[in-house]
């Protein structure tokens, strides 16, 4: 049986004045996957997803979410959808428990609230006012609100922005748990490490266009990416011999910091043997694998961080 598409987007276009925020984007998200939508700020990620959620009206193109047209069946769709948005807020004097109870009343069914609070690590914040919460607590509350209706599809826009490393990891576990219960997760992020670790498939978007779509490991492999050996050493004439190593394609040098590029699996062995044989003292030697960040750079010609 082919996987069921829960998000279908075909030739989506949306412009603001002269700016083509989304320029002919097509992709599908299948049931039970964590789908990453990555790109720099202003790439068109949020606009695409908000068109899909029915919060914005696309200029053209076809959108189906859970088989529904978000413009015509917005209400039915939103009952089955969980949404975490960027740049939102609650009334300052609303309490955490009140917010959950209020949002639960908007849906035909909702999850057990004490359990949800506990999952989010907010169990002792139930009576706290929204404006007294820290940034991370607010973020976790918004994730809780996105999950209050036990959605079939949950869309998280910048899930872990503003979270400390520990809550970031616990959010990742939570998202995997949601997927393992058969739900589908769409994750918008400009944080490449998050996409690489968490997502089953990743769409890379830049300048309103879809640049690539595949599993993180396929994307990295498609780069036929090179490994790097990085180390610090005193400059000496002998060190120029590095570039003639059979596994090395290129050597970069900044002051006493050397980066040897190469695709051979034996690159690190060759480099260490060379340094040792020539009595060149070195320290801080490590290898670096290509990452999604490199894929992005190769595809778009610029770095994620503008």
């Amino acid at each position, binding site marked *: 049986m082919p996987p069921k598409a829960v998000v279908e987007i075909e030739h989506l276009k949306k412009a603001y004045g002269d700016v083509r925020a989304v320029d002919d984007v097509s992709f599908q998200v299948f049931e039970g996957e964590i789908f990453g939508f990555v790109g720099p700020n202003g790439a068109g990620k949020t606009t695409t997803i908000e068109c899909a*959620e029915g*919060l914005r009206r696309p200029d053209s193109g076809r959108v189906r979410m859970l088989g529904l047209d978000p413009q015509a069946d917005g*209400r*039915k769709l*939103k*009952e089955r959808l969980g*949404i975490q*948005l960027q*740049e*939102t*807020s*609650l*009334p*300052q*004097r*609303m309490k955490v428990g*009140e917010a959950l*109870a*209020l*949002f639960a*009343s*908007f*849906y*035909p069914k909702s999850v057990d609230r004490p359990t949800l609070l506990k999952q989010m690590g907010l169990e002792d914040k139930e009576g706290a006012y929204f404006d007294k919460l820290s940034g991370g607590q607010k973020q976790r509350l*918004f994730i809780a*609100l996105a999950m209050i209706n036990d959605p079939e599809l949950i869309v998280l826009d910048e899930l872990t922005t503003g979270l400390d490393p520990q809550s970031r990891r616990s959010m990742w576990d939570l998202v995997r748990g949601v997927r393992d219960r058969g739900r589908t997760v769409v994750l918008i992020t400009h944080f490449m490490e998050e996409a690489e670790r968490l997502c089953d498939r990743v769409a890379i978007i830049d300048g309103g266009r879809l640049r690539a779509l595949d599993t993180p490991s396929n994307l990295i492999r498609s780069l036929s990416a090179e490994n790097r050996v990085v180390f610090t050493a005193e400059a000496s004439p002998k060190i120029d011999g590095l570039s003639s190593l059979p596994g090395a394609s290129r050597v970069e040098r900044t002051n006493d910091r050397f980066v040897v590029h190469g695709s051979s699996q034996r690159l690190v062995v060759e480099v260490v043997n060379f340094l040792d044989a020539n009595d060149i003292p070195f320290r801080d030697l490590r290898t670096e694998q290509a990452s999604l960040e490199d894929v992005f750079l190769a595809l778009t010609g610029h770095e994620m961080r503008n």
Partner: protein
Amino acid sequence: MTTLRGLGQLTRMEIKLYFREFFAVFFNLGFPLIMLFLFGSIYGNTPNPFFGGYGSVDVLTPAYLAMLIGTSGLLTMTISISTYRELGVLRRYKATPLSPQTLLFAQLLAVFLMLVLGVVLLLVCAKLVFHLRFNGSALSVTGAFLLSSLSFFSLGFVLAGLMPSARSAQAAAMIIYFPMLFLSGAAIPREVLPATVRQVAKVLPMTHVVNLLRGLWVGDPWGKHLTEVLVLAVVAAVGLVVAVKTFRWE
């Protein structure tokens, strides 16, 4: 079903939030009572030919109703809608199955219910403490109250829609509200205002609310106040159209 439940819960929540805002409670509930007790204790409520045979409190109370309507429509409504928009609260609600109409209606209903509470408090105090007189028809005064509320609530939406930020909406609301409050006869009886001020004040919608409510309060027929009714109906109609056209979610 979920629409009604959502509407009910959101309205209840908004009323709770209202009681957590000191300034909202003060301006909508406390301030008119302070005015009533202040002027009531200075002038009493004995009949006076200066007020056509009525006492000060009889004349001030319907004028304070106009003040309450202005506070709710211009201040509370404008500030809450523009703040919710700026903070992204409206956006968050919009991502739920709650329809946009339900969401806005809940805001309106909450403010209106608080207005009614303010009115009831004012009337009960005026009656119990100052033996307020009433010679009109309760139905007529209620009708005029609803029409006036409609026109001022739509003005609140217009201001929230036209002003680019919560701060500017709040400033505009204050700049319009306070001069209107004193020139229209809502805070000070029109009888003590100079004739030129009274002439100029005719362009203010609140003046028409004051005149309509004061008239119907003492038993005037509607026919005596057609100008006021017409002005308020036009303000309400134009206001609603402009409000719908200028309303923004973010």
